[in-house]
């Protein structure tokens, strides 16, 4: 896309780069905003939005908001991917310029990992965890709302960079000294630093929140070893979040101090040491990839057991392997920079620790297989994605083990072999897992089951598209094609494979459109879930109506076995009278809604925006706003209320549960 120079000159440094695509999106964003404002005003929905969603502290609603945000970000990141693949389809393409391409892969990677995968797993945490452990909410509902809004405004900040000030272009890893001020001036990189920082605080809070929830708020009788496997995976992921995000906080903060205040942590001059950024980044970055994949493992464990109508195989070793993965992933971070030359002793140690992650992961794979073995497999949508996941992840994991062989990595590093590896685990593991989870819990969230036929099409198109897109990339890596290049010459033998890869990417794009269609179609022609237990489930969330009432459980259940709901159904099938043990209803203690998490996050956003443009007065204003919100919260005493028994009885009666 080549523009006459005058367009560039007209564009102010604030409303960036004179690219028609940017102008188009500027216009589109404004139009969308106007449309949203219009619709909300016309249908008088502002109050509803504020009362029901923005101020909510209900984990189920927060989960739904996370889900919507994640799907939107998947779209945004996916469009970036389509643009990249279009540019790479043929040699010497002139569809995107270097600067533009650099911004696109940076936002693609950043958005996909931090603003797609993270909110997606948090969506699943919020939707499923309290219901699975028989709790009425998370441990800190107010904090939970803060987490969501911090994520939301972090994501907003990053996405804003596309139209205001310029996008970051140093890769999602953002290594200095490239990203230091002298080589990367302007607000783009600041957007990256502050967006991640703000949402990172939210993620850390979520980690703490769910760890406390699971450890302290389980229903009576649910010992740790009776917990659903998804909850165990959340424990693992939370531990990883809690102990790894601080490293990201530090890495980002130091780089920001360098850029804004002229310090010398990672500069080339005055004694700075850029390798320390690389080190700190991956101290977080490696655990991060397990943070997003462990919940996917948890979902697969639930789905595979449910749709094989069988108990999960090897529960104890599943738990052990989650914990082993969580702990080992703190000892492997160097594998992302074997080629930094830290010495053969260091490289060997980290190579071996990295490979050994394959052991517990392998155990999980075998346990899933044997859960299906001698079961009765129903190929419903969640199960389809789970089955699609296994070969995908086995291959992606095996190439991970190949990357872990340090001398081999000297050849693969930064090549398309690496790109293929991590898409295979990120898409085949995380995206497949989250889609499985979405299909699985969709009835629980909305009370409708998504259309099976369109879903099947989407699955097959996506799965085939996936292999078509990424298998050729392994080969491209062997052929010497490195990542982050916006053009490549003809005559390298890369052309055909790149073209195939691009076709695969488009297939995935089509599959995504099918999924959107599927959702819209199912809303139009809903298949209602009236039982609350559409899949013949095993865990407690299926004992509730779909969607669950806002207090979740009218009576907190007492758990006596591992698959609590399955056990109860078995008991019923045997004709035992479960009803007779019912305790009388009691008033339920619930947190109040509050607008302050939202306002607090707006203040964070304002402060962050101020720092991005180095308008320090604005930054300080935002900071003061944050302090004020915290102070007001600290002084607040009226934070909770009780739902009277009468109201519970009415609600339950309406749901046909009395």
């Amino acid at each position, binding site marked *: 896309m080549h523009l006459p120079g005058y367009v560039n000159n007209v564009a102010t440094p604030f409303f960036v780069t004179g690219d028609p695509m940017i102008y188009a999106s500027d216009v589109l964003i404004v139009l969308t905003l106007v449309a949203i404002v219009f619709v909300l005003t016309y249908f008088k929905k502002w109050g509803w939005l504020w009362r029901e969603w923005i101020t909510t502290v209900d984990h189920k609603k927060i989960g739904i908001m996370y889900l919507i945000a994640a799907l939107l970000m998947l779209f945004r990141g996916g469009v970036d991917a389509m643009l990249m693949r279009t540019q790479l389809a043929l040699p010497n393409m002139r569809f995107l310029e270097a600067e533009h391409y650099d911004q696109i892969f940076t936002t693609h990677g950043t958005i996909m990992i931090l603003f797609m995968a993270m909110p997606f797993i948090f969506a699943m945490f919020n939707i499923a965890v309290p219901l699975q452990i028989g709790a009425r909410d998370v441990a800190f509902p107010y904090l939970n709302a803060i987490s969501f809004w911090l994520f939301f405004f972090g994501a907003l900040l990053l996405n804003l960079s596309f139209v205001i000030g310029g996008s970051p272009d140093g890769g999602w890893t953002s290594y200095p000294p490239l990203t230091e001020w002298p080589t990367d001036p302007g607000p783009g990189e600041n957007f990256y630093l502050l967006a991640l920082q703000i949402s990172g605080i939210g993620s850390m809070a979520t980690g703490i929140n769910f760890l406390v929830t699971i450890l*302290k708020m389980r229903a009576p009788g649910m010992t740790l070893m009776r917990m659903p496997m998804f909850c165990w995976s959340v424990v693992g992921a939370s531990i990883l979040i*809690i102990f790894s995000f601080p490293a990201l906080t530090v890495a980002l903060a130091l780089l920001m101090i360098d850029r804004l205040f002229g310090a010398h942590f990672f500069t080339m001059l005055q004694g*700075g040491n850029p390798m320390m950024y690389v080190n700190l980044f991956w101290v977080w970055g490696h655990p991060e990839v397990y943070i997003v994949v462990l919940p996917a493992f948890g979902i697969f464990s639930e789905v595979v057991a449910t749709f094989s109508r069988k108990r999960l195989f090897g529960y104890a070793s599943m738990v052990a392997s989650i914990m082993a993965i969580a702990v080992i992933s703190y000892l492997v971070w160097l594998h992302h920079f074997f080629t930094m030359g830290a010495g053969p002793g260091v490289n060997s140690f980290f190579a071996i620790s990295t490979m050994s992650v394959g052991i517990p992961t392998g155990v999980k794979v075998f346990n899933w297989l044997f859960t299906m073995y001698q079961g009765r497999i129903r190929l419903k949508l969640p199960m389809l994605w789970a089955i699609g996941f296994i070969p995908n992840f086995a291959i992606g994991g095996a190439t991970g083990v190949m990357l872990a062989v340090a001398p081999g990595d000297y050849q693969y590093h930064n090549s398309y072999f690496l790109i293929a590896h991590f898409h295979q685990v990120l898409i085949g593991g995380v995206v497949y897992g989250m889609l499985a989870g979405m299909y699985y819990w969709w009835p629980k969230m909305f009370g409708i089951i998504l259309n099976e036929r369109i879903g099947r099409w989407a699955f097959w198109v996506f799965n085939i598209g996936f292999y078509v897109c990424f298998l050729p990339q392994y080969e491209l890596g062997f052929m010497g094609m490195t990542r982050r290049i916006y053009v490549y010459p003809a005559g390298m033998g890369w052309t055909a494979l790149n073209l195939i890869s691009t076709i695969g990417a488009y297939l995935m794009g089509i599959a995504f459109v099918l999924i959107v269609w599927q959702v819209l179609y199912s809303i139009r022609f809903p298949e209602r879930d009236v039982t609350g237990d559409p899949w013949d489930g095993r865990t407690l969330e299926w004992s509730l109506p779909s969607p669950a009432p806002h207090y979740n459980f009218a009576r907190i259940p007492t758990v006596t076995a591992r698959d609590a709901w399955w056990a109860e159904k078995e008991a019923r099938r045997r004709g035992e009278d479960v009803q007779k043990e019912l305790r009388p209803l009691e008033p339920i203690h619930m947190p109040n809604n509050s607008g302050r998490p939202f306002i607090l996050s707006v203040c964070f956003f304002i402060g962050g925006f101020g720092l991005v443009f180095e308008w320090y007065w604005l930054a300080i204003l935002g900071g003061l706003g944050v302090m004020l919100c915290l102070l007001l919260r600290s002084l607040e005493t*009226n934070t*909770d209320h009780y739902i009277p028994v009468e109201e519970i009885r009415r609600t339950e009666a309406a749901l046909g549960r009395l």
Partner: protein
Amino acid sequence: MSLAHEEVLSTPSSDVPVEYSTEDGALKIFGFWIFLATDLILFACLFTMYQILHINTAGGPTEQELYDVPGFTAETLILLVSSFTCGLATLEMRRGRRSASMGWLVVTVLLGLSFIFLEVREFVDYVNRGATMQRSAFLSSFFTLVGTHGCHVSLGILWMLSILYQLGRRGISAMTARKIFIVGLYWHFLDVVWVFIFTVVYLQGVM
């Protein structure tokens, strides 16, 4: 004013202190322990950074030239004593003695303020001697590590003031007791971090 939820006492018994007496309190205290664990990792990263960069003085002032033994020893003593007085505040809170508890908190706040005063004076002194954050990687990491601790302490002071206010208004309830206990944990934690700053930054620097 309603403290209804705070009175959801999980069987008040003589061996459970007030701050743990509600489910809410116990959850928050546990949550705060985990928060401290994250802060621990945060400081660990800053310490690592410092340890790697402290020799990179780029021809600027060195540790030997800057650090002043009586100065940092005084800061250390003040913080150690404040940790003690803060502990007493928690103790008195558990005994239900509101004014004693508030008194020790006030002492802690005053000690904290004098610590901050000394630290700011130290920083100003360095800057006047040309040792700014922009001068070298060593100084960047020094100011960031010690400054982050200082920010934590300042935040702790503000927090204690807010709790003092609440204690004055509401007396010792399950809620205020929990807050005193938690701010105490925070304060002791900062003391631990300072001991490492004392050791790794200052003592190593003058060694």
